[in-house]
């Protein structure tokens, strides 16, 4: 503070200032100032700031004294944390106001006219003024030109970078594909399936921003290696920010597991096989689609988990972490898991390839089921009254006029959950696999009657149909045994040749037994049909022969055939277990007859003689029927 230092007064010189020295050496002095002039001059020199400062100091002192006296008020005011700031701001404001006033007063002649102090006349020439004005105008023009140049370059930049679409064009494209709205200064988009009928709680909002220029320029150097090859492909002018919980890659894994080994597995990933890396410079469309996929998977899993907890199953479903375990058939479980990797760079370890078979049916149906739910949520059956509630099915609306009873109404309220449906589908999938396996192994094991199966093309996720034909090679026209199997969710329905319907459980052994049974029946029927064409006579046949050794798989089948002349009889016995073919031949009467004590006359020989086994494996012939044909032929000709 220079104010505290000692004031030094300098007196004006006694001599007046020299105004001019004429050529003859006479000095012309300035006339001395008059009293009023000198007063004005001195007044001009007064430093007002000094006094105001002093005043301020005084005021402060007064205020302090005041605050001391009125302690309550001061206490309250000092409580307020911004008090000092406010005071300072107020002071500044006051000063600015005063300054503005002074300026106004000084500038306008309305309030006060400033008497120009007689000073050294510094008369500026008009030319100088013009130059000054010119300079000022040039400065202004420069500012304007610089502004115009800036606008021009920014326009040129856009025109030059035609490869990068304009922000607004990108925005338009985005708008055409996604829902956007403006909230204050931000553009907010929505990628949830809510408009498609989803009722999932999680929001799928994302934010659209303009990609920063410097970022665009700055990104290539930051990643020079991958960017080196593609500098021509600039990033989009749009930047999409997705909430962190929707970033990354998600898919739902479905595994059917038998104790510990996998029977089949499916991966649901709406984006297909491509593992979309979530690198930051991905195009917004892919980024948004990936996020939407994550949202969809989350919703699906959420729904499944909720149902798994709510459903009352005999063996309760387990929900542990991101995994649902449900038992579909005894010993076989289905595991539905949500896999979500948030960071794309570290690939999730995928041990799945070793598990082989991917069942894309399950993958697809899970997808489809939720879509169906969505669709149902938005598409209400027409017509419905404008004032009526949305939601009840058409059937339910008809319930009133049709006078439905309580049971019917109760029936309508039952709805199959997604989990139940997927369990049914997986059960069916399993049943189909088992049936196919049994049929194939049987066809491989059993060479003689040919077992051919044809799977029906038309089937539903929970029902399919297979047609089985049992026939003998070369004798297709003589006899064939058709069989139709409906594969359901947990059971098989077999429609036999004679129209009999049999319901089988999921145990593959039952089905195997049934096929064996049909093989034996086929053999016997084929022999009989063959006999008919050969002119032989069928004496008897039984599908359930009670005699002989007990068969482990039901009863043996048999038939008796007589030659055209009636003197030879062939007995065929077929056991359910493959290979159990027994053929015996009896001659009556025998060609030679020796009367004995018991059989005294030759006529008794017509009753039939002893059966002798035929060793089929030694016989010629491609298969059983061929052998039988040869046998019958030889027996006929012998007579």
């Amino acid at each position, binding site marked *: 503070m220079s104010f505290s230092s000692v004031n030094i007064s300098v007196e004006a010189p006694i001599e007046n200032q020299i105004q001019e020295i004429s050529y003859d050496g006479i000095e012309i002095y300035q006339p001395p100032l008059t009293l009023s002039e000198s007063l004005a001059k001195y007044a001009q020199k007064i430093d007002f700031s000094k006094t105001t400062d002093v005043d301020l100091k005084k005021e402060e002192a007064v205020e302090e004294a005041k605050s001391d006296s009125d302690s309550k008020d001061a206490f309250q005011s000092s409580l307020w944390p911004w008090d000092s700031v406010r005071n300072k701001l107020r002071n500044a404001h006051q000063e600015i106001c005063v300054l503005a006033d002074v300026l106004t007063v*000084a*500038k306008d*002649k309305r309030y006060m*006219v*400033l008497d*120009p102090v007689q000073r050294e006349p*510094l008369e*500026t020439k008009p030319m100088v*003024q013009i130059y*000054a*004005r010119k*300079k*000022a*105008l040039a*400065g*202004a*023009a420069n*500012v*304007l030109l*610089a*502004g*115009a140049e800036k*606008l021009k370059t920014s326009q040129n930049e856009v025109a030059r970078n035609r490869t990068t679409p304009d*922000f*607004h064009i990108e*925005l*338009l494209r985005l*708008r*055409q*594909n996604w829902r*956007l*709205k*403006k909230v204050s200064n931000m*553009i907010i988009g929505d990628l949830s399936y809510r408009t498609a009928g989803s009722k999932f709680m999680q929001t799928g909002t994302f934010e659209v921003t303009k990609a920063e220029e410097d970022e665009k320029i700055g990104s290539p150097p930051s990643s020079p290696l991958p960017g080196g090859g593609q500098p021509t492909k600039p990033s989009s002018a749009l930047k999409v920010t997705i909430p962190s919980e929707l970033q990354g890659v998600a898919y739902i894994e479905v595994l059917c597991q038998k104790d510990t080994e996998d029977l089949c597995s499916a991966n649901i990933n709406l984006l297909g096989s491509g593992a979309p890396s979530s690198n930051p410079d991905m195009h917004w469309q892919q980024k948004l689609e990936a996020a939407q996929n994550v949202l969809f998977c989350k919703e699906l899993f959420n729904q499944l988990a909720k149902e798994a907890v709510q459903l009352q199953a005999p063996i309760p479903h387990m929900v542990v972490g991101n995994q649902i375990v449900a038992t579909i058939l005894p010993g076989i479980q289905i595991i539905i898991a949500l896999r979500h990797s948030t960071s794309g760079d570290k690939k999730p370890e995928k041990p799945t390839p070793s598990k082989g078979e991917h069942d894309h049916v399950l993958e697809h149906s899970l997808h489809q089921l939720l879509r169906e739910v969505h669709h149902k949520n938005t598409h209400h059956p027409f017509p419905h009254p404008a004032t009526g509630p949305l939601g009840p099915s058409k059937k339910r609306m008809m319930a009133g006029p049709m006078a439905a009873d309580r049971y019917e109404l109760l029936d309508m309220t039952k709805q199959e959950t997604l989990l139940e449906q997927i369990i049914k589908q997986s059960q069916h999938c399993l049943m189909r696999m088992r049936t196919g396996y049994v049929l*194939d192994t049987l*066809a*491989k094991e059993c*060479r003689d009657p*040919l*077992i*051919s*199966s*044809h*799977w029906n*093309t038309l089937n539903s996720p929970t029902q399919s149909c297979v047609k089985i034909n049992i026939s003998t*090679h070369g004798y297709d026209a003589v006899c064939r045994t058709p069989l139709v199997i409906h594969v359901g969710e947990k059971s098989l329905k077999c429609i036999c040749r004679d129209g009999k319907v049999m319901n089988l459980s999921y145990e593959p052994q039952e089905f195997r037994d049934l096929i064996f049974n049909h093989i034996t029946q086929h053999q016997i029927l084929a022999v009989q049909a063959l006999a008919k064409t050969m002119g032989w006579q069928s004496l008897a046949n039984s599908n359930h022969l009670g005699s002989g050794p007990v068969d482990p798989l039901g009863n043996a089948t048999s038939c008796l055939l007589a030659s055209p002349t009636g003197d030879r009889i062939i007995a065929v016995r077929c056991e359910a277990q493959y290979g159990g073919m027994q053929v015996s031949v009896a001659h009556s009467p025998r060609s030679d007859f020796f009367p004995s004590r018991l059989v005294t006359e030759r006529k008794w020989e017509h009753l039939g003689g002893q059966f002798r086994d035929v060793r089929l494996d030694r016989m010629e012939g491609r298969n059983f029927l061929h052998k039988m044909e040869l046998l019958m032929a030889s027996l006929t000709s012998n007579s």
Partner: protein
Amino acid sequence: MTSRALPQSKEALLKSYRTRLKDDVKSMLENFEEIIKVAKGEHDTQLSRLTQCEQDTYEMHVRSANIVRAGESLMKLVSDIKQYLILNDFPSVNEAITQNSKLFRTKQAECDQKLMSLRDDMAADLYDLEEEYYQSINK
């Protein structure tokens, strides 16, 4: 008619765009006029000439900067209006959606048709193959 159907906030927003446009244009014009006026230098003042010159220079600078600002504000307004149009142009969005859905529907029908024909072919072939397989010795 259409503006009547707009909600209050949208109406206000459009109005604000209009006022912004007018303000900016007006500000450009006014500032330019002022610069010209200052350049004429016909105002009588009680300030000293030098100070006056300095003030004029300063004023011109500020006013020209104001003009530039108004220009940039107009650019911003253009971009804002573009954005507003893009975000709120529901007829064109609807058109895009209809077009998209039509496209996808035809694609779907195409795929369905192809899948169906493929399925039929495969079913026929499968039948023959099954027949052949089960008749053959090498099972």
